[in-house]
């Protein structure tokens, strides 16, 4: 019995490590205003003005920007809010 607990913990750690990060990607669209996108990034993702503007410009010039990466649950939360603000958003598993 004494041996079982450490083994279980070790296994749990491995499972956490195996959970791959997810990327929240915002795509360019022809409708939303630049300052609207900056405002949404600040509100939803907590970016400061400089970081929000940098990601907005990436979306505008490159067609998309990875705005967040991390565990699936949080990624889904951000994607949901960004979609509510009518930003075109995708979730992808980080390779």
């Amino acid at each position, binding site marked *: 019995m004494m041996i079982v607990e450490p083994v279980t913990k070790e296994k749990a750690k491995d499972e956490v490590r195996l959970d791959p990060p997810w990327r929240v990607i915002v795509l360019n*669209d*022809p*409708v*939303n*205003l630049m*300052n*609207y996108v900056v*405002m949404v990034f600040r*509100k939803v993702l907590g970016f400061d003005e400089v970081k929000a503007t940098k990601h907005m410009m990436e979306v505008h010039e490159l067609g998309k920007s990875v705005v967040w990466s991390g565990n699936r649950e949080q990624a*889904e939360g951000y*994607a*949901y809010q960004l*979609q*509510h*603000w*009518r930003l*075109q*958003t*995708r*979730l992808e598993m980080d390779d």
Partner: protein
Amino acid sequence: MIEFRLKIDSRITRMVSPLIRNSFSTTGKVTCPEFPYPEESDVELVDSWQSGLREEIAQDRLALARLLNDARFPHGYVVIEEDQAECVLRGLSELRFFIREHRLDSISDDELENGLSLSGLSKDIQSFYLAYLVLAEIQEGLIRSLT
């Protein structure tokens, strides 16, 4: 309370406000963004995601309806409760998407982004383009008020 007057000739706002109200009514039922996992097969997850979003988008539409039905709106006045501002902003975004996709679909993204000359456009397109710009101007004013 957030109150401001659009920096647009009130003859234009009077002209496009019926068109804006009409477009808003035409959007009818709440549309929902595409699910963010392109290959998701869990139907329950997709359903609960989309029904949640639909409920929130319906609230946004309600807030926008209040603004559009305000008697001062055709005269270029935007008057809304401060706690409704974010809902109205999102509702405006949805309405602009609708006009872009259904009424201005003959215009390219580049033209729309860089600005159009009204001459050369049909009367219908001119009016919808002006409505699209008026909605953007409202968003600009709200963003200024909120930030």
